[in-house]
Every structure is written in structure tokens, then in C-alpha cells.
């Protein structure tokens, strides 16, 4: 009966109006309340007193005597404390919380209140400022989140971004995170390997690229096992949850935005390519030297051969040859083709978005349209995207709610045919073609480049890149359709049932056409010569690949929530999910094709065996099914202690696998201690929040393509004429030993906010250990196979992530926010099975991206590289690799495998050790200035040598390092001499056959860089302008992207990020003008 006194405690009425600080509009449904702690202090019998604001933002609340403050909160705004004085009316302005953290975190399965969050989760609100000049959501994430690294693959239109969360977790399996759109885990988001991406021939449309960033409300990144365990096996690399915008109750809002951006042509001066004069001089010098490799190649050599002056030149030099030949060589010197200028261009991109949203008590809606078109810097390459999004929610009654959304898009990439094994990629070609090579002759006929060669072989088909661009096309059209249907049934305040059906269909068509006059078809014709003539019909080709992948996911969940006396909070969820995916592809080829008539001709194969070289039609189909059950549980005591747990069983259709291996339980446990809510912290006013989190979880993965039995595929084969039989072909060996790959993850973190949330600091330490990692191992060919999948390694990742948000200056006309995040990751392989045949060192004890190289000790007196032995002596390749003649007169290294491995020294890792970003936003009156920097530090890259000392091909262009090569007159250099094949044969063998020059540590470069990712100036239109057009708000902004980059050393390369591949398109610089209007 202690409380009885307070029953009669007097109350007073407090009135007020709540508005949003940004636009001064009233906030409807904001809650105004007295805190529980305050009530307790005065021994009030109620645990809570609170009201909601009405449609005009007004409220009336009865406050017990003794209470001196009330609180006001609204979603998306900072909670505010209002000290009560003598007044009875209070105007409360709530500040939008774009910089602070929201109170609800969406994990895709659950919405968790941030105060109960026990796991490592980061959330980014997607604003116009953040999107800037990017066109796809993966590009937006770069540098935003501690522990998430985003590396742009190339500067080509639509190029995907390689995203890694907390380092590399699997060595061979997919390393891409799982993407979830409004609760639906997306299919088709794995991006191909970097090497494939950097080939312009491969144009990709991932399903991420199809989502319009302007439709996205926020993104939540789930980093530790406690957060991801609920997603099961697919979440081993982290989860990125996309929440899209939805309509809000209130008047209809119309938003329009447009972006116009300009990307200037790449300046290739950094590449230091030889000009015509230098190239001609080099060729002449080489012809008089004893270096004879590909002597017949190059313009000078061709002229000398044509005039029959080769011998004269070799003996007597330039003055000894005929005046005709001299004149021709001089003409060559003065002919210049600026490949960069004629193959590349300035590009201009446009984007338009329109969205309409709004809602009533019963229903809300959000509809948007988006169109974007991008011209590549390569002439002939462009991309476009068209988006439609529709989202509605219906509230049938207070128990039942429905939601439906549709996301549809079409993407198109246009290019021309280039191919990996020749020089027909424009980026590659522009850097290897001779500066004096002509495109057209005086009669405007194509001039074929006969110095161009496919991968070192001597097969030659007429090639001219302008002809190729004009006469071929490569089109990738993809349509994607995702739709979601949600139901929520609130039985009472404790029980809730939700269910979601998601459908995703992605279709893509890749069409490749080559006309009769093109290198592409000439190459096919070369492959099909029988008795002196190609059996392919006259004309071009048309090849088309259609793929369709689709999934249906259904999930149902029951949630239980109970709050006992505001002391014990219990939440539990039980759910199930079933999923089925289909994949189908169809390839179709026609030869003798003519674009005008759209007709093709049959191929008359001289023999059945040839038909496999030119398949005309291929079909493949896969179907997979998954069933999962999952549960989560969370208990909080007095808002201070929270315990969480989750478990999930994943089952899938593993063919040929024992049923007991179908399910592996994945689970996590986690806890939270909110120190700031403890009574001993009561006096410390300046601390708003201090909490410590800890979690542990187990994740796992299995290789679906491995079976303990022989797993075969039906095929048809013809051995003898006229008899075709069905066979079972085996592509991978049976494997009884393969186990689940398991990852144990632990995380400890803290959240700390002080001075009214002006300073927020979040830190996490994680330790992740992967055991039984699945990898590929080379097999001796005597097994009949070249490789198999094994549990070959265990690896740990540990790291620290820090994220600091500060609101440095907060004045009426000047405002300054800073966000700084930094992550340190250390990766180490603990165990690894190294095949006894492996010639490179074992990775045990090193990071997965480690590079090993031979220590370079300068050049000897003949310009041959020297190697530093472990004893510190400098020796030749012959000695370093102990190269001896064999009984058949050739050469071989007499080192054992072990010794070969020990010749390498550790030279660094390719994965950045430190990653992060630094973002500053200033608001000065109506102007907003944003400066974003991102950095990646502590990694190295293995670049290719500028030229090979034994296989330098004088038919092609190269950078100026060749001019600085060792010669008897230029001995102070690190660039080796060009080695003739009849001199120092053992050394020659080392460079020509073992390619030892490629692995010199001379070519391993530091790859640290910091990039000024974006600098942006925005201007909010003043009311006077807004009123004229009846707008509620409007901004106009100018952004420069990738304008500057600071890096350790990237001589001869355009950008430190693409150093590994000198032929990749660099990350483009751009300037964008953006206009955002809201009505």
C-alpha cells in the first residue's frame, strides 16, 4: 500500500504542439510521455503515462506533480526532453535524425528495437546526398560502413562492385554477401571473378544493379553471426538488407529528380606509352641488336622486308639502306594515330526519377518511375535502365494488414564484340597497338593490323578495330521482376502472425552478331578449315543466349511479445521458410547470318566430330529446393540486460548426398548490458548511452556439387558413324570425405553516446574462425582428374571496427557533421593442405591474399637480373634456380619442390588491412557541402612487368620502361636487358619457360590509396521560389566524383584501384548536376 498516496497525487494539464524542425510541419502521432524512471522516483502507481499527438500535431497530457520533464519522440527524429516550467503550452520542435541512429532495425525477419540490439549491425539511411552520382546501390555503400569494403571492378557502364563484409570468409566459395529486399533474399547477386569482370567482353547485369537507389529508404548491414544466423547457410558472408520507401499517411507527395553527369575522356598520359618516333627508334635499335624474338614484326621490320633491305640495315644501319626504305621509315616516324582519342570519348549520362506517395488511415502507396542512360567512355558502349516500383499497404482492421509491392526493371547494355584471347578489346588494343598503325588508307579502306595476335599464337585473321566496332554488336537485355505479398495478423498485443510470399524472375538475353566482314567471324572461319576452305557458310553469325532464373519463397512466422511490469520483456519468434529456385538457359547459334535479311544458312559439317566445335543449340536446366525452420528468442530485464538467441535448420536437395547431411543447425547466442541505464549511472547526465554487446554464432556451408558417389550427366555421343549412344559423363571425381564448412564467429562491441547524442561512438571487435573450409586441390592427372574439392583449410579473421559520428557545430546558420569509420582486418590461414606438387609457398600462417615473390637484387654486368639468396648473396637465375642441362639438351631446374617454394619471399597481401571513410557535411544557411573520402591501406598489388626480357614483342606498343632497359651504355637501371635466345641459355630458360621475371618483388607495388570519392555542393531553394511552383522543398546540387586519388606509387597506371590489370577501364571521374523537387 505504499502507492496509495500517489493515487491522490494531483496532476496538471500540459498542452503543446509538435512540429518537425526541418519543414515546420506538424508531426502526427508523435508520442509525448513521462519516463518510467521518473514515475518510479515519485512512487507513482502507473508505470507509464503517455499520449499521441493529434492530426494537427497538438497534444494534451496530464502530468503528475513532482514530474519536471516530459519526453517527445517520433520515428525518424531525435527524442527530445522538455523541461517543464510554469507554462502550460509548449512548442516542441523535433529534429530529424538523419545523422543519428534510428530506433528500429530491420533484419528482414524481424524489426528489432535498437535498444535491444545485441549484435553487430550497421544502418545507413539512403539520402539523395549519399546517392550522388551513383546509379546502383552497391556503389553507394563504398566507405559508408566500418567493416564493409566495396571495390569497383572497372569503370565500364554497369560494372558491379565487389563487396566484402569483414574480410574474406571462404577461400573458394562465394564471398559475396546475401542481399535481401524487403524480406526477400535475392538470387543472382553473386558477381563473377574480378578477372572476368575486367574483360570488357563480359557485360553483366546483376540483380542489384536493377534496383533504383532512389527507391531505397535505408540499408542495414548484418555483420556478426548473431545477426546473420537467422539467414542460414547463405549468410556466411554477411547480409545486406534493403528497405524500400513506402508511402506515409498524409497528403500526396510528388518528388522529381534529375541528374546530368559528364565524364571526361580518360587521360592516358600516366601510361607513358611510346610515341611513333620512340617506337620506330626502338624497333631500329632492336634490329641491330642480337635480340631476335619476333624479328619479322613491327613497322620497321615490315618496311625493310618489303624493300629487301633487312641485311643491309643489320650490317650498315639506317644509312646503308635504300632511300625508298629510308623515306618509308621516316614516314612511319611521323605517322601518329591517337588511339585514345579515336576509341574513347567524353560521356554524358542522364537520370530521371519520379515518385508519388501518400496514404490515408487505411492505405498507403508509393509509386516510382526511373530512367537512366549511360554512355560509356568507350565509343560504341552504352547502358540504360528503366524502373518501375509500386508499393501499397492496406489496413483491413486493427488486426489485419496486407502489403503488396512490385519492383520491375529493364536494363540494356550495348557494346560490340571483343574477345578475351585477342586484342580486340578497345582498352587493351589502344594500349598495345602501334602509335603509327593506321585505321584507314588513303582510299578510306580499312587497314588491317598484322602485328595483332591472339595470345601468342601465330594465327592471324584480318583485324581492324573500327571495322569490328561497325560490323558487330553485343547486346545484353535483362528484365527483372520482383514482387512481394505480405500479411500481418495481430491477434492481440502479444501474438502476431506474419507471412510473406516473394517471387523473383530474372530474364536476360545476350545477343552477339558479327557481320560477314569482321574479325569475329574470320576467327571462326580459321577454326573450321577443312581441305583449304572453311565449311562455315558465307556470311556472319548470330549467337543468342537466353537465361531465366526465378525463385519463389514463402515464409511464415509467429511472434510472441510480452512485457511484464516493464521489467521483463520477452520476445520469441518461430518461423519456417520454403524456397524453390529454377534456372534455365538456352543457347542458339546461326551462321551465314545477314543482319539485313535476318536469314542464316545451314552448316554442312564435313564430319560429325566438327559439330561439337560449333554447337548450334544448348539447353541447360537446374532446379533446387530449400526448407528451413528458425526461431529467435530475446529476453530483457529492466531495459538493462538483454539476452538473445537464434537457431536455424537449413535443408536442401543435395543429390547423391546422405540425407543426414541435409540439415546442419546454425545458431547464435548474444547478450547486451546497457550500463547507462544502471542506477549508478544516474548522476552522469552527459552520457546518453553506453552499452556493451557480445555474441557467438556458428555458420556453415556445403558444396552442392560434390557427392561421395560418382555423379554423372547424360550425354549423347557418336563413336562410329551412324550410331549415337547415350553415355554418362563424369566431370568431377567422387568425394567421400567432404564435410560441412563451418565458421565460428564471436563479436564484442560497445555503443557510446554523449552530450545529447552529439558524439556517437560504436566499436566492435570480432574473431571469426572458419574450419574445414572447402577448396580446390590439384590432383595428379593419373587420377583421371585435374582437381577435386576438399576441406583444406582453416582460417581466422579478426578485426576492429570503429565508427564515430560527431555533430561538431550546431548553430542556426552553420552546422557541421563528421562521420569517420575505420576497420582493421587481419586474415590468417591457420591450417592448409598444400599439395606436395605445389611450387609456391604454403599459405599457412599468412593471409589468404598473400603474394610471394623472388627478392630482386639489381642487374648484373650484362643486364640480367640478380636474385638475393637467403645468405644475402646476389646470384643469377641459373644459380638461384639451379638450372642444368638435361640429357636431351634442354634445361630444367634441379631444385626440389621444397626448394622451389623456399625461393619465394613473402611480399604482402592483396586485401586491404585498413579500410574506411571520412565524411564531412557542412550546412551554411541554405548551402550544404559534403566532402567524402574513402581509403584502403596496407595492401599490395602484383603488377605485370613492363615487358618480358625474353618474349618482348616488338610488334606491339609498350610503356617507356623499355627505353630505360639495361644496355651497355645504360647500366644504372632496374629494367633488365632484352635477352637473345643463344646467350646464357640456362638463364634464358628461366625467363622464357619459368617466367621468373614476373615474380620478382620489383613488380609488387604498395597499393594504399585514399580517394576523394565525392565533393558536393547543394543548395536548398528558398520558400519564395518554392511557393511560386507550389513545392514543399527543392535542392539543386553539383557533385564531383573521384576527382582526386592519393596513392603510394602507381606510375604507368591510371588508377591505384585497377593496377592489377593495366587494361581495365579506370574508375571514371565525373561531374554531376542534380535537381530534386518535392511537391
Amino acid at each position: 500500500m505504499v502507492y496509495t498516496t500517489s493515487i491522490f497525487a494531483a496532476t496538471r494539464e500540459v498542452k503543446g504542439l509538435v512540429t518537425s524542425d526541418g519543414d515546420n510541419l506538424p508531426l502526427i502521432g508523435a508520442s509525448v510521455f513521462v519516463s518510467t524512471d521518473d514515475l518510479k522516483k515519485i512512487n507513482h502507481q502507473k508505470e507509464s503515462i503517455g499520449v499521441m499527438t493529434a492530426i494537427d500535431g497538438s497534444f494534451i497530457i496530464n502530468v503528475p506533480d513532482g514530474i519536471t520533464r516530459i519526453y517527445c519522440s517520433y520515428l525518424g527524429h531525435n527524442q527530445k526532453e522538455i523541461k517543464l516550467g510554469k507554462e502550460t503550452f509548449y512548442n516542441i520542435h523535433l529534429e530529424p535524425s538523419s545523422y543519428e541512429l534510428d530506433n528500429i532495425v530491420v533484419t528482414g525477419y524481424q524489426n528489432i528495437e535498437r535498444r535491444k540490439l545485441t549484435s553487430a549491425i550497421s544502418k545507413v539511411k539512403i539520402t539523395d546526398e549519399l546517392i550522388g552520382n551513383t546509379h546502383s546501390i552497391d556503389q553507394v555503400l563504398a566507405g559508408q560502413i566500418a567493416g564493409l569494403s566495396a571495390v569497383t571492378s572497372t569503370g565500364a557502364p554497369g560494372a558491379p562492385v565487389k563487396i566484402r563484409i569483414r574480410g574474406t570468409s571462404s577461400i573458394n566459395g562465394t564471398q559475396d554477401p546475401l542481399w535481401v529486399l524487403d524480406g526477400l533474399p535475392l538470387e543472382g547477386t553473386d558477381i563473377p571473378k574480378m578477372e572476368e569482370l575486367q574483360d570488357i567482353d563480359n557485360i553483366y547485369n546483376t540483380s542489384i544493379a536493377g534496383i533504383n537507389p532512389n527507391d531505397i529508404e535505408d540499408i542495414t548491414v548484418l555483420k556478426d553471426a548473431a545477426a546473420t544466423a537467422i539467414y542460414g547457410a547463405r549468410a556466411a558472408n554477411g547480409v545486406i538488407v534493403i528497405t524500400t520507401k513506402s508511402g506515409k499517411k498524409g497528403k500526396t507527395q510528388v518528388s522529381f529528380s534529375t541528374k546530368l553527369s559528364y565524364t571526361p575522356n580518360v587521360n592516358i598520359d600516366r601510361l607513358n606509352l611510346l610515341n611513333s618516333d620512340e617506337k620506330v627508334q626502338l624497333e631500329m635499335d632492336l634490329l641491330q641488336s642480337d635480340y631476335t624474338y619476333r624479328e619479322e614484326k613491327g613497322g620497321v621490320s615490315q618496311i625493310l622486308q618489303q624493300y629487301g633491305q633487312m641485311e643491309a640495315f643489320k650490317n650498315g644501319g639506317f644509312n646503308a639502306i635504300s632511300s625508298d626504305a629510308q623515306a618509308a621509315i621516316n614516314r612511319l616516324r611521323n605517322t601518329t594515330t591517337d588511339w585514345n582519342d579515336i576509341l574513347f570519348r567524353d560521356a554524358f549520362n542522364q537520370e530521371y526519377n519520379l515518385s508519388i506517395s501518400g496514404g490515408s488511415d487505411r492505405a498507403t502507396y508509393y509509386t516510382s518511375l526511373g530512367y537512366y542512360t549511360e554512355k560509356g567512355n568507350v565509343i560504341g558502349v552504352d547502358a540504360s535502365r528503366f524502373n518501375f516500383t509500386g508499393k501499397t499497404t492496406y489496413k483491413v482492421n486493427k488486426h489485419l494488414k496486407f502489403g503488396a509491392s512490385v519492383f520491375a526493371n529493364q536494363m540494356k547494355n550495348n557494346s560490340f564484340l571483343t574477345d578475351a584471347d585477342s586484342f580486340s578489346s578497345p582498352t587493351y588494343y589502344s594500349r598495345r597497338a602501334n602509335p603509327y598503325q593506321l585505321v584507314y588508307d588513303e582510299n578510306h579502306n580499312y587497314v588491317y593490323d598484322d602485328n595483332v595476335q591472339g595470345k601468342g599464337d601465330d594465327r592471324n585473321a584480318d583485324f581492324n578495330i573500327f571495322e569490328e566496332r561497325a560490323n558487330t554488336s553485343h547486346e545484353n537485355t535483362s528484365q527483372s521482376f520482383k514482387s512481394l505479398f505480405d500479411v500481418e495478423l495481430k491477434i492481440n498485443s502479444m501474438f502476431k502472425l506474419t507471412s510473406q510470399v516473394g517471387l523473383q524472375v530474372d530474364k536476360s538475353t545476350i545477343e552477339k552478331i558479327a557481320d560477314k566482314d569482321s574479325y569475329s567471324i574470320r576467327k571462326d572461319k580459321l577454326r573450321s578449315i577443312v581441305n583449304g576452305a572453311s565449311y562455315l557458310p558465307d556470311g556472319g553469325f548470330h549467337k543468342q543466349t537466353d537465361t531465366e532464373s526465378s525463385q519463389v519463397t514463402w515464409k511464415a512466422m509467429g511472434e510472441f511479445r510480452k512485457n511484464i511490469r516493464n521489467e521483463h520483456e520477452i520476445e520469441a519468434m518461430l518461423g519456417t521458410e520454403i524456397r524453390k529456385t529454377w534456372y534455365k538457359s538456352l543457347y542458339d547459334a546461326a551462321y551465314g547470318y545477314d543482319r539485313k535479311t535476318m536469314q542464316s544458312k545451314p552448316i554442312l559439317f564435313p564430319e560429325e566430330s566438327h559439330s561439337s566445335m560449333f554447337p548450334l543449340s544448348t539447353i541447360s536446366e537446374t532446379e533446387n529446393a530449400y526448407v528451413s525452420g528458425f526461431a529467435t528468442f530475446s529476453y530483457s530485464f529492466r531495459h538493462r540486460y538483454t539476452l538473445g538467441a537464434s537457431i536455424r535448420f537449413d535443408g536442401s536437395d543435395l543429390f547423391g548426398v546422405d540425407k543426414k547431411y541435409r540439415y546442419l543447425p546454425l545458431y547464435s547466442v548474444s547478450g547486451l548490458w546497457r550500463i547507462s541505464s544502471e542506477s549508478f549511472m544516474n548522476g552522469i547526465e552527459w552520457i546518453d548511452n553506453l552499452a556493451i554487446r557480445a555474441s557467438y554464432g556458428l555458420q556453415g556451408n556445403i558444396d552442392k556439387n560434390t557427392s561421395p558417389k560418382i555423379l554423372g550427366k547424360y550425354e549423347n555421343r557418336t563413336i562410329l558413324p551412324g550410331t549415337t549412344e547415350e553415355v554418362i559423363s563424369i566431370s568431377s571425381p567422387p568425394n567421400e570425405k567432404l564435410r560441412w564448412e563451418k565458421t565460428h564467429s564471436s563479436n564484442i562491441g560497445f555503443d557510446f553516446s554523449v552530450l545529447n547524442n552529439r558524439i556517437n561512438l560504436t566499436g566492435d571487435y570480432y574473431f571469426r574462425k572458419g574450419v574445414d573450409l572447402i577448396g580446390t586441390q590439384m590432383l595428379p592427372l593419373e587420377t583421371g582428374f585435374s582437381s577435386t574439392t576438399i576441406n583444406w583449410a582453416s582460417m581466422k579473421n579478426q578485426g576492429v571496427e570503429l565508427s564515430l559520428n560527431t555533430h561538431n557545430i550546431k548553430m542556426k546558420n552553420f552546422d557541421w557533421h563528421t562521420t569517420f569509420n575505420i576497420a582493421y582486418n587481419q586474415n590468417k590461414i591457420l591450417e592448409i593442405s598444400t599439395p606436395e606438387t605445389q611450387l609456391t609457398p604454403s599459405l599457412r600462417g599468412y593471409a589468404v591474399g598473400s603474394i610471394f615473390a623472388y627478392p630482386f637484387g639489381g642487374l648484373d654486368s650484362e643486364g640480367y637480373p640478380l636474385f638475393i639468396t637467403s645468405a644475402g648473396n646476389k646470384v643469377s637465375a641459373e644459380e638461384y634456380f639451379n638450372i642444368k642441362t638435361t640429357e636431351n639438351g634442354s634445361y630444367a631446374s634441379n631444385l626440389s619442390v621444397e626448394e622451389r617454394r623456399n625461393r619465394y619471399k613473402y611480399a604482402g597481401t592483396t586485401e586491404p588491412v585498413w579500410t574506411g571513410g571520412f565524411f564531412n557535411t557542412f550546412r551554411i544557411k541554405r548551402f550544404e557541402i559534403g566532402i567524402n573520402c574513402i581509403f584502403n591501406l596496407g595492401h599490395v598489388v602484383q603488377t605485370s612487368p613492363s615487358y618480358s626480357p625474353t618474349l618482348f614483342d616488338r610488334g606491339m606498343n609498350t610503356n617507356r620502361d623499355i627505353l630505360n632497359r639495361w644496355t651497355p651504355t645504360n647500366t644504372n637501371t632496374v629494367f633488365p636487358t632484352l635477352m637473345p635466345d643463344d646467350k646464357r641459355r640456362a638463364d634464358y630458360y628461366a625467363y622464357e619457360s619459368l617466367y621468373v621475371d614476373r615474380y620478382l618483388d620489383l613488380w609488387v607495388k604498395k597499393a594504399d590509396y585514399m580517394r576523394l570519392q565525392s565533393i558536393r555542393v547543394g543548395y536548398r531553394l528558398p520558400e519564395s521560389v518554392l511557393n511560386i511552383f507550389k513545392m514543399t522543398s527543392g535542392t539543386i546540387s553539383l557533385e564531383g566524383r573521384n576527382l582526386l586519388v592519393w596513392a603510394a606509387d602507381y606510375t604507368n597506371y591510371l588508377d591505384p584501384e585497377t593496377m592489377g590489370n593495366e587494361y581495365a577501364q579506370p574508375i571514371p571521374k565525373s561531374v554531376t548536376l542534380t535537381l530534386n523537387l518535392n511537391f
Partner: protein
Amino acid sequence: MKKLTSILLIISLLVTTGCDNFLDITPTGRVIPETAQDYRKLMTEAYYLMPSSRGLTAFISDEIDMTSKNLDSYDKDTFLDLWLWNNVNPSGSTTYFDWEKYYKMIFIANTVIENEKSITNGTEAEINQIVGEAYMMRAYNHFILVNLYALPYNSETATSSTGIPLKLNSSMDEVLKPSSIAEVYASVLSDIDNAEKKLNVETWETGLNYRFNTLSVDALRSRVYLYMGRWEDCYNASERVLSKKNELVDLVSGRTLPNAYNSSESIVALEMNMTSTYNNVDKLVPKALYNLYLPGTQDQRARKFYKTEVGGYSLIKGGSSEYRCSFRVGEIYLNAAEAALKNHHPEICKTLLLKLLEKRYQTAAYTQAEIDINAMDDDALLDEVYLQRQLELSYEGHRWFDIRRMEKEKRPVLTREYEGQTYRIEDNYPELTIKIPDEAKEANPYL
């Protein structure tokens, strides 16, 4: 609350019971072999994998001429370095001898042998036949490999000379060291013995006659013993074949070539010795080889095996699957003849040779040959046997191996004249042995 619990319970029950059925998807087109029919399909795939390396040896022996002016760049890239014996820095697209496929066939054979007892749904005879073929395949492939990549068999050094790895199980774990040549031959012979116990099909219908049959047991023995120099064994094995099948194609009157898959001589029509790409080399038949045949139409083989073109000859007896041939009656005659001679029965040798020539020569030429051969001494007769092997079995993957096992003084000198330069085989093929492919060496340090 109770209501809800029961709803959840029902849902989860439904889900878990439905699960296993839902997950039981047999992927379209994928299979785990269990039945005899499945294992037959597996064996067919193994046969299909059979490389043409035996035929490719034509390029390093004296059966190919690449000096034609019309040689296209593809042929230059693919074969020229092989033909010039350049195995130090050949062009990247040079065709080379196979390794992995031979062992992949052996893997399938081992799988079949190991699973003999668990094969379902087949008659005993059917299963025995499949297993017998697997033994034959293992024997034949090891035999080809040891002859490609190791020294020729020599009874004195066979136990100490390095052969090739013997793969006698389907394990993926071991890294094999090469066995000695003697061990490889012993294993080959033992596999043939095992095959003999299982095989029961004497003749496969045309179209399926790439498969091993009961006749092939002795046909293979005949060749193995010939290469080993066990003349009596060779002769006996050959005779056992000939006692069941001895019909030779009559080239004078007939149209089918003896090495065609549907010829009456065919025993096993497996290897495509001259693939269409090999065959495409412009005017590949050396004039020297063509001139060894009797001039004009006297030797029908010259007319039927080769086509005369302007400035040279191209090949008719190869270039398509129609001419798949691993064993045929003609070879057995020649094996028997050589074995008889070396076992000091020249008269048997003469009879066998003449039986063959009767079907190859015009009557007048045959009459002359009868006189000539019967007058020959042993040495001349041996030359004649070698010559007839060269002429009869040309482009069927025999010549290289015959040269290797010839007495040193009888071996032809292998040289090439190309663009003014002279190339000699000794420089890069010591002891006439092919280097093991680099990718095999990279994967197994013991090679």
C-alpha cells in the same frame, strides 16, 4: 494462446513431413550409376574419350611431310613444331600427346572393376562383359602410355628402367611414382588374363564394334609380346586370333579399306588414328613413303590409301571416324610373320607375308613377289617384314613404335629439311622417347 500453439504445431508438422519429399529432386540429366545399363553408358563415355595420340606419332616419325607451300597457318601453329621435334619452346597451340584422358579412361575402368559386385539389374554375362572390357581398357591404356612415354621394352633393363605410373584403383589420394617398365608390362598381361576370364562377346554388331571383344584379348597379347620380343608367345597369340578370324580384305576387287570400321578385318574399331585435323595438313604423305609402294597399280594400297594431288599426295585412309581402328587382321598377320621369323621359322613368315600380299597386289605383281620373297635370306626377309608393316599399317599408329623397337642398324634416319635448315630428332627426342606433358609433371613431382 492454446489455439495459437496448436496452429503453429500443425504448421511445423506439415512442413517437416513435407520437407523430405520437397527436397527429393533428381536434377534433370544427372545420375549416379547403379545398373548394368548405367555402367555400360559409363564405359561408352570412356571409349569416347580415347585419344588419338598413337596416330599423332605419325608427325614425329617418317609418315608426314609438312613442306607444302600451301600449308595454312592453322596447321603451322598446330603441328609444325611437333613435326620439327621442337619440344623446347613450341608454339602455344601445338598439339601434343595426351596423358590425362588415358588416365580418365583408366579411372572409369577402375570404377567398373571395383563396383563389379554392386552393379544391379543386369545378367551375369552382361556384367562380366562390362568388367572384362574394363580390364582390357586398363591394360591397353597402360600399354599405350608406357610405349609413348618410356623407353622401348628391353628384357635386360626393363626392371630398372622408369616406366609410367600404374593406376590400379580409383583413389584420388595417392601421388603415384612411376613403376618400372617390367612392372607395367606385367600388369598389362595380368589385366589381359583377367579380361579373358570375363569377356564373352565375340563379335559386336557394326557400329558398336569399338568395344573390346573376346578376340581382342589375343590381338592385344600379340602386340604386347611383339613389343616385348617374346616371339613364341606373340606367334601363338596371333595364331589363336587367326584361327577365329583370318579373312583379309581383297583390295584388288573390294572397295572397303582394311582399316575401315566396317571392314571384314576389323577386330576393335576404337582409335581414330588420323583425326580430320591431322588429315587436313596439305599433301601430308611424304613422296619417299609413296615411292616405297610398287609403282603404278601393282600395289593396290598405293592407289586406295592415297590420293594424288598436284605436287603431292593426301590421305584417304584417315580423317574420319569411318577409319577408327585399333586392331585388325592385317596387323595380326604381320605380327605373326615377324614373330615366326625372329623365332627362326622364316618359311612360316614367308607364307604369312604372301597371304597378305595376295590380297594387296595385282596378280602379276604377286607372282613376282612370291618368287622374290621365297628367295630371300633372313636379313632380307626381316627388311621385307618391316617394309610391309610400314606400307600396310601406315597412318594406323604403328610406325613410330616399330621404329623404336627396330634393331639400331635397321632404323631409318629421321631428319627434316625445312626452309633451308636441317632438323634431327636426336636433339630433342633422346632414345626416341616422348616427353611427359608439362601439366602432368606439374601435378606429380615424381614424373
